[in-house]
Every structure is written in structure tokens, then in C-alpha cells.
């Protein structure tokens, strides 16, 4: 069976101050129906650009190369009605900031029923009845009342649930979730995430899940792609990623987040700052910040290569370093506070 979504050699250039700059470089992955793939990286790593390319929501003037195939059709060649059909039926997007991404002067009911009424020509009453059901699905049980409210009257978490309900309305085959919980506060994050994950399973939708949180990706996704400076640096099953990372960047990301069970003297920050694709020097983009970097790393960009079964990495030393990446660089227990 061929994959539902296939991204092959996708590169994107954007016009910045008059010249084209690469923001996405040679991204390839595939996603089967019902499967979940995580895209993890810092801001500017290209994860949002990847998702926007799939929905053809790139800024004006963007140049793309490579291919994106959805159910056998080339997405990048879709235009006009075909593109609208693809957007309205096949994919649904959930955005990071639900407040900014809902029209402030239209009611919740309008937001929920709009897609059904505009694209599916469902009569209003029918659409509203369905909207109440959808709200119940995302755990909002006073739907009748909510339909009459405006976005500013709802909390961020509630609004994101509405956003999720709205994306379910058209029963898409693929959900593009662009950091759906980042803008929410911590307690609502897990609620919203649980709802999203459950519905994704129940509806049998494939999901491309963007986050900067490796652990979250590991919890939600079957497989995870780690991105850095516009390129993929690692791709493997989520279950193994946090015990056996294949790229120093993934390992560093892992160590830079706190764990509840374990007290560490100080969270190891990744030295330096994240770079964009167009700022990268020759060679490995992560080399300037990598504690395992050698001269050869800085000479040429390493290829994205298979390391094992379903395991890929863009590190020259991936096989050599396997298993050692998570060993802390410096352990100084004296620094433990209290």
C-alpha cells in the first residue's frame, strides 16, 4: 500500500529583502493513513514551513522544489478548485494560536458550521446540530450556548478545542497540527493534547504533529522527525528516540528539558543559538554547537543516511557515537541546589 502523504526532496526558498533564501532543504518523509508523525525542532528549523507547504499556505513569492504527493496526487500542482477541494476535504489545519486564527467578529457557531455550509452545502440547522455534537466530542457539553458566543469570550484552551472540533467537521484524512498546545497554559495543554490524540485515533486520521517538545512528540507520535536549520537531522520511531537518539542535536534537545523524576544540578543548555537554513556555514549546520564536532563535520554537509531499520540520521558519526550521545558532558553533583 502506498503512503497517504509522501514528501520527497522538498525545498523552499523565500524572498527576504530582495533575495531568495533557503528556508527548507531536501525534506523527505512519508505518512500512512492513520499514522502520526512528529516534526520537532526549534523555531526557524523549518517545521512550520513543511506543514505550510503541504497546505499550500506559503507566503507569496515562495519557491518550492521537490514533490508532495497526497493519495497519489501531486499537491504542489493543485490549483483553483482542485486545491480548494484538497484543503476542504482532505486536510485540516490546527494552528498554534487559536485566538489569532479565529475571526474575532464571527460567532463560534459560525466558525464551526462555516466549512460544512460553504463546502458541503449542509443546511444551517443540520450544521448546527452537527456542531453541537462535535463540541461534545472535544468535551464541551454546553454546545448550544457556546455556538452563540464569540472567540473573545472563550479561554485559549476552550478555543483550541473548538478549533479541533472545527477541523473534525469535514472528516479530513490528514490533520496538520502546528504546535496546537504551545500557546496554552500548562494544565490545559495536556487536556487538549489528550483530546486531539484520542480523536485522531477514533477518526483514523493521519496526523502531522509539529512541536518543539521532543517528549510530547514521543508520547503522541508513531515516528518523529527532528529538524534543524531547515533540514531533517534524524528520523526514527518515537519510542526509541529518547533512549537512543541518533543525532547529537536530538540528544542535546533531550537533555535540555527537565524531567520530573530526576533532579539535575543544572539543565544543560545547548551552547550557541539556533540558526536558519540560509545562515548555516558549509558543512553540518549543527557543528558550531555540537560537542562531538570534528573538522570533517565542518567541511561538508553530511548526507541524511540510513543508520538502521527505519532509522535515519544526518550525522557523520551517527554509528560511532550511538549510545554515547546521552552521557552528560560534565557531571558536577556539588552544584546541586540544597
Amino acid at each position: 500500500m502506498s503512503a497517504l502523504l509522501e514528501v520527497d526532496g522538498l525545498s523552499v526558498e523565500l524572498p527576504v529583502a530582495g533575495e531568495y533564501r533557503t528556508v527548507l532543504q531536501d525534506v523527505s518523509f512519508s505518512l500512512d493513513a492513520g499514522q502520526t508523525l512528529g516534526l520537532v525542532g526549534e523555531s526557524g528549523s523549518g517545521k512550520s514551513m513543511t506543514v505550510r507547504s503541504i497546505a499550500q499556505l506559503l507566503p507569496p513569492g515562495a519557491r518550492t522544489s521537490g514533490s508532495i504527493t497526497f493519495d497519489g496526487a501531486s499537491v504542489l500542482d493543485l490549483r483553483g478548485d482542485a486545491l480548494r477541494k484538497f484543503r476542504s476535504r482532505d486536510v485540516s489545519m490546527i494552528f498554534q494560536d487559536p485566538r489569532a486564527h479565529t475571526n474575532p467578529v464571527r460567532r463560534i457557531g459560525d466558525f464551526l458550521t462555516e466549512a460544512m455550509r460553504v463546502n458541503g452545502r449542509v443546511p444551517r440547522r443540520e450544521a448546527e446540530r452537527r456542531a453541537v455534537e462535535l463540541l461534545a466530542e472535544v468535551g464541551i457539553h454546553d454546545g448550544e450556548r457556546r455556538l452563540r458566543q464569540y472567540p473573545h469570550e472563550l479561554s485559549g484552551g476552550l478555543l483550541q478545542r473548538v478549533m479541533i472540533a472545527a477541523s473534525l467537521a469535514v472528516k479530513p484524512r490528514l490533520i496538520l497540527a502546528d504546535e496546537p498546545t504551545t500557546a496554552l497554559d500548562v494544565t490545559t495543554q495536556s487536556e487538549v493534547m489528550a483530546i486531539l490524540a484520542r480523536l485522531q485515533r477514533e477518526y483514523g486520521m493521519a496526523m502531522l504533529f509539529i512541536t518543539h517538545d521532543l517528549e510530547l512528540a514521543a508520547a503522541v507520535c508513531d515516528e518523529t522527525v527532528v529538524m534543524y536549520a531547515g533540514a531533517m537531522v534524524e528520523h526514527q520511531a518515537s519510542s526509541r528516540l529518547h533512549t537512543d537518539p541518533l543525532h547529537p542535536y536530538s540528544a542535546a534537545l533531550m537533555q535540555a528539558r527537565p524531567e520530573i523524576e530526576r533532579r539535575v544540578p543544572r539543565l544543560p543548555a545547548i551552547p550557541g543559538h539556533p540558526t536558519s537554513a540560509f545562515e548555516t556555514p558549509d558543512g553540518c549546520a549543527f557543528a558550531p554547537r555540537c560537542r562531538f564536532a570534528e573538522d570533517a563535520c565542518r567541511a561538508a554537509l553530511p548526507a541524511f543516511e540510513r543508520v538502521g531499520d527505519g532509522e535515519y540520521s544526518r550525522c557523520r558519526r551517527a554509528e560511532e557515537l550511538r549510545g554515547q550521545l546521552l552521557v552528560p558532558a560534565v557531571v558536577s553533583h556539588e552544584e546541586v541546589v540544597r
Partner: protein
Amino acid sequence: MSAASPKAALHTLRFLGGRIGGLLVTLLASSFVVFGALYLAPGSPITFLTHGRSMTPDAIAQINEQYHFDEPFLLQYVRWLGGILQGDFGRSILYKDSVGSLLGQRIGTTVALIALSALLVALIGLGIGIFSGLKPGIASSALMGVSTAAMAVPTFVAAVVLTLVFAVELGWFPVFGVGEGPVDMLYHLILPAFALALASIAFVARLSQAAIRQEITADHVQTAISRGFPYGVVVRRHVLRNASLPVLTVLGLTLAGMISGTVVVEQVFQLNGLGSLLVSSVQQKDFPVVQAICLVYVAAFIVLNTVIDLAYSVLDPRVSVGGGKS
């Protein structure tokens, strides 16, 4: 959708009450200014009103009675205001006629002029703004350039130039007057309305262009596009609907501003409306008429602003009618 809760209804009522209360206070304050102006005049009010005209004692007694000069100032004001509320604007010193009927004969022309101008502003100003907002390009930039220049053209200059070009040189339109019958009147009012509307058309065009350009890049419009809606639906329901809010405030204020512009335009085109009556009454020192017209103008101006304000709060749910969280 209806079925608002009683609490919400109460909020709406309180909101409306507040706005209307504010309207009444402002109206009262400006009527006080218009009336009190009489006392700022050098000399006694009665000599100011008669202005050295040789008048019969009868006529003077009539003025005295009309303004109740024998009573305290505040009482005079209350009586004057009470009369106006009953439609009694007093008597013209010059025409020996009731001011109310003078205004009645004239107000139609002025209302027609303002209505036609408002229509032009809405059609042309919004038309240009929407076109250049949605279709950036050379045509759009050119239209914006012309609009910017047009904003520096005073109404009277526009009136003079339009008369010169379209009435005198080309002879397409009459030079002055309102003609006879409604169709002829409309024809006679086209040039004056254009002159009155020109600067407002330019504002509205520029503002709506900017509002659309800003709205079109909004995140929620991205959402609408990502949901596969046709371009027309995205533009109508999400871009134009939202961009209409800032435009509405300005549209209302420009309409209100055009009210005082009628004074100039009616003068140029010799239209027998309130504006030209105001100017001739000032020149002929017919103060009761001046007072009445100023009051009508200011009232129209204030009422219009309140209506726009209310319309805005209906259209923008974030302006909380209930006064709660916004």
C-alpha cells in the same frame, strides 16, 4: 441568533441608555452654547438682535416676548429650548416669518445634497478602496496617489474647479440652482455633491485600502484559506467584514463633517438649502435664523456620531455592549 438571557438584555438596555444619555447631555451643552452666544455679543441682547434697524415698538415687543428678556437668563434658556422642542424656533427678524417654516422650505435641498454625497462616498470611496486593497499593482498605487492629493483639496476649491470644467467649459451640468422636479434636482445636485464628497471619497478610499491590506494578512484569514473556502467567501466573510469596522468609524465622521461643508457648496452652486440660508442670515444679521440652523447642524452632527457609534458596537462584538470583558 436570538434568545439572549434577561441579564444580557439588561446589559444592552443599560448600554443603550448610557449612549443616549451621553447624546442628550452633549445636545444640551451645545444648545446652551448656541443660546448663550447671544449674551456674548457686545451690547444688550435686544440691541444685538435688532442691530440698529429702525423697528416698530410692536416688533421689539415681539422679540422681547420671544426671548423673554424680562426673565432670568436660565429661565430664558429653558423657555427657548422648550419652544424648540415643540417645533417653535422663533421668528425671523428679516423675513417676518417663523424660522421653523423657513427651515422647512430649505432643509430638503440640504438633506438631498448630503444624501447624494454620502452615496458617492460609499460607492466611489469604498469601490476604490476595495479594488486597490484586493488588487495591488500600478492601478492601485496610482489611485492611492490621486487620493492622497485629493485630500489636500478644500471643498470650495473642488466646487470652483468642478464648476469651471464640467459646467462652464464642457457644459455638461448646470452652473447653479436646483432645477424643478426631483429628476432635474438630482441632475443639478451631481456637481455640488461631488464637490462636497471629494475629500471624503479620498479618505475613505485610503482608509479602506489600508484596512483591507492589513486584514488580508491576518491569521484568521489564513485559517479560512486553509479550510478551502472559495476566494469570494474568504474576501466577503472574513476580509471585508472585518475591514469594515475601522472604515465605518471614519465613514460616519466624514459624513458628519460634510454637514458643515454644505455651507460652502450651497454658496457656490447657489442652492437654496440651510447652508446658504445660514450665510445670508449671518450677513443680514438675522440671528434667530443663525441660531436655529447652528442648532440643527450640531444636532445632526451629534446624532449621526452616536448612531455610528451604536452601529459600531453592534458590528464589533469585542466592544462589549454589556460593558463586561472586552
